[in-house]
């Protein structure tokens, strides 16, 4: 027995010694041994919990906004400094018909996919029709498109259901990624109307990236990390980092620890309190930039609380909230737009928001004659871009109690909340909208029309919204568009059904090893601008 144990220990030792000596014979990790390779490897820590697939046709998720542009491109792109400006990407130019119903895009002829196939108009048609017909979460992005015609290999025409001056802006959404149609079709991709039942390409797209982007998927270890490597033959400028690793780190405190110790380069989900505590830290820098994300509250017409049907009650709620106090609790200096169209969007900067005025709120309620009343507030118990919805509602509850409105807070899971919100059964709740494209129409459509998603939910959006929306889409002159946008936003503000609370800042903490870490309106992070610190 004793001898057996001794022999086992000796064998185990021999195996470990052999293993130590094998480093040179194994290539798997040879590339990681040198310091030089660490320099060109960028490691990002963020919560990847919502990354269910890499198929752009299937799911809308925060993580996908960062991931999709690594491996694919869209026809046109937003200018990172001013996202209202549209720039060429896979399309070098585009024309529009006088009635704004037909858009023709001219493609670059020097773009290839990882397979070596050249980008053609067929790829654009296949990719975008597939998104429309798979009927996944991103299908609504193609809602305006009636049909697509391939004119020649580098020219493609979109025929829209109506005039749409914002169409090029809509086409910048990262989900409208152009993929290699030949490879996609060979691996279960279907673009015709049967796609909702017959498309089986997701498993393939989760393992292989077939876009025109600067990177290719190296490995996706679900729930763990996703690794991209720069690819040969990319049509744009070669990226600074040859490898990008995004690690799934759920909590802000863990991300903070890892970035402080140098184990990750950028922590993406940092809340204002953590950022404040890192101000004096020497090894890391804190970036805090204005985002385009908007946290709002919504009142709906429900049997439980008919009071909200009265405009004066809604305006009283609008006037009773202490916006300054909410902003101060979140690090201060966060702007607040007048309506659910973020600052930075056309027209939003020119309409003043309603100021806090408790006396006015009380007067409005007295005029409405509703007396004191209570409301159940069901909301998603989440932290949206650093804003804890629980903390937000605690504050609003205190504010509204001053005017005789009692809130009963009911935090629930996201999926339970969205079900109630969709069913129009929540008299008062909060929501968040992070834009994928940067024309004000992407807010007018869902929030400003009776037939828009939120118009249907709240059942209280003003009737002239549809008319204003069509007028806005039919106008291409920039100053005229702006005038309509200002009118629209003013109407939305005064109707007081959806009240913007805060446009939070995007905070990241990054290692001093890197530089030029900036917020990207469409990607969250300007991945391609990050450089090594000098």
């Amino acid at each position, binding site marked *: 027995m004793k001898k057996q144990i001794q022999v086992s220990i000796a064998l185990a030792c021999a195996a470990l010694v052999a293993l130590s000596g094998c480093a040179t014979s194994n290539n798997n990790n040879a590339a990681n041994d040198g310091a030089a390779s660490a320099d060109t490897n960028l490691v990002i820590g963020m919560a990847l919990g919502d990354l*269910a697939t890499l198929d752009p046709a299937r799911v809308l998720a925060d993580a996908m906004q960062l991931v999709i542009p690594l491996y694919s491109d869209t026809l046109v792109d937003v200018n990172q400094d001013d996202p209202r400006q549209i720039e060429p990407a896979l399309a070098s130019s585009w024309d529009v018909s006088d009635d704004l119903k037909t858009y023709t895009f001219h493609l670059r002829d020097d773009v290839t996919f990882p397979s070596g196939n050249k980008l053609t108009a067929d790829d654009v048609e296949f990719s975008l029709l597939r998104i429309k017909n798979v009927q*996944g979460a991103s299908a609504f992005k193609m809602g305006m498109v009636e049909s697509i015609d391939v004119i020649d290999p580098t020219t493609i025409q979109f025929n829209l259901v109506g005039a749409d001056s914002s169409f090029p802006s809509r086409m910048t959404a990262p989900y409208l990624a152009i993929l290699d149609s030949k490879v996609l079709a060979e691996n279960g991709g279907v673009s015709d109307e049967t796609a909702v039942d017959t498309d089986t390409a997701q498993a393939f797209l989760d393992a292989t990236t077939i876009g025109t982007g600067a990177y290719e998927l190296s*490995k996706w*270890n679900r729930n763990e990390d996703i690794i991209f490597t720069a690819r040969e033959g990319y049509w744009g400028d070669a990226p600074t980092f040859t490898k990008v690793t995004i690690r799934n780190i759920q*909590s802000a405190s863990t991300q903070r620890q890892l970035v402080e110790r140098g*184990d990750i380069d950028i922590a993406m989900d940092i809340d204002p309190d953590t950022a404040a505590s890192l101000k004096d830290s020497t090894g890391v820098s804190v970036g805090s930039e204005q985002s385009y994300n908007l946290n709002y509250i919504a009142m709906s017409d429900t049997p439980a609380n008919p009071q909200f049907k009265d405009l004066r009650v809604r305006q009283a709620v609008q006037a009773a909230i202490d916006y300054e106090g909410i902003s101060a609790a979140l690090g201060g200096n966060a702007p607040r737009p007048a309506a659910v169209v973020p600052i930075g969007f056309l027209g939003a900067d020119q309409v003043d928001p309603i100021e806090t005025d408790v006396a006015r709120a009380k007067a409005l309620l007295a005029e409405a004659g509703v007396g004191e009343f209570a409301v159940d507030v069901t909301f998603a118990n989440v932290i949206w871009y650093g804003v804890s919805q629980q903390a937000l509602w605690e504050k609003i509850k205190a504010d509204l109690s001053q005017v005789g409105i009692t809130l009963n807070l009911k935090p629930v899971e996201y999926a339970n909340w969205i*079900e109630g919100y969709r069913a129009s059964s929540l008299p008062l709740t909060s929501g968040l909208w992070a834009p994928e494209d940067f024309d004000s129409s992407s807010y007018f459509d869902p929030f400003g029309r009776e037939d828009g998603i939120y118009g249907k939910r709240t059942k209280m959006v003003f009737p002239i919204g549809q008319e204003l929306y069509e007028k806005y889409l039919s106008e291409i002159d920039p100053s005229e568009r702006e005038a309509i946008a200002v009118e629209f936003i003013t109407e939305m503000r005064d109707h007081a059904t959806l009240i913007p609370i805060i446009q939070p800042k995007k905070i990241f903490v990054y290692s001093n090893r890197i530089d030029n870490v900036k917020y990207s309106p469409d990607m969250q992070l300007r991945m391609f601008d990050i450089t090594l610190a000098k």
Partner: protein
Amino acid sequence: MGILIFALRRFLLAIPTLLGLLIVTFILANFMPGDPLARLLGDVGGSNPETVAAYRAQWGLDRPLWEQFFIYVGNLLQGDLGQSTFTRRGVMEDLLSFLPATVELGVAAILFAGIIGLALGSLAALFHNKWPDFLVRAIALLASGVPVFWLGLIALQVFYLQLGWSPGPEGRLSSRVNPPPRITGAYTVDSILSADSVAFWDSLAHIVLPAAVLGAFFLGLVSRMMRASMLDVLKAPYLMTARSKGLNTRTIAQFHVLPNALIPTITVVGLAIGGLLAGAVLTETVFSWPGIGRYAVDAAKALDYQAILGVTLLIGFVYVITNAIIDVVYAALDPRIRLGS
């Protein structure tokens, strides 16, 4: 009763338990409030009634509950646990891809807690009411009394941030190390099999702290149980007989004390495996460990019924089968059990 018949009877008895588990879990999962398609279709996509209807039909959610149940059981018998509405992959495929990480962590935790716990328990019993005994009892009390997530955070603060001895809570490997080729899915094992020393040492360094944290509760339990049962055995008359026969201390310890003292300890080990899986949910969250625990949390957040069912059945299955095995081992070690006396 022979040990084989006893084992057969014990495993047959596990079947109704598993069936009960299946029925209760299925009903509970289907009566959870919330719409599983909410997360899948997003805020905008899920607002289109046609899209929602198409997806309901696609996922079989438009059928009556009893029909869904029989379809589920039929598929289950063929090893198909349905499709996750969140990852859109087979739940079995998901479980198989996340299970190795949890098994790796769990085995490391059991090894850590088992070896150290048995040693500490034996030490305490041999030095009954002396300082080593007091020390072991204090360690056991602390280890089993402290909540696992708190212990995880404190361990990271001390061993990662302050002392720098351990890698951070970044999962199973450093970002600059490539994972070994997948053979078993457990990085420590796969790196040995593929002779990748860089990955081996890195994965070993990453597993020590989470395994110790996860195993802490277990360690307290094992050492206390071992101490108590060893104290009982040390007082037993057959030890006096053994000593009077002139057997040396080592023979007595090896053949008389340890086997007898291990019996109750093994029962505790079996029962603790369920607790270990529950603890894995928290430990995996703290250490960003990509196992079943993380998958379960994500599934619950997304109201992914099929995945929640799959994870619950898996944990239940492991628990029931482990208990059956422990009963059989117990019977093998102690003939009184199978003889029914």
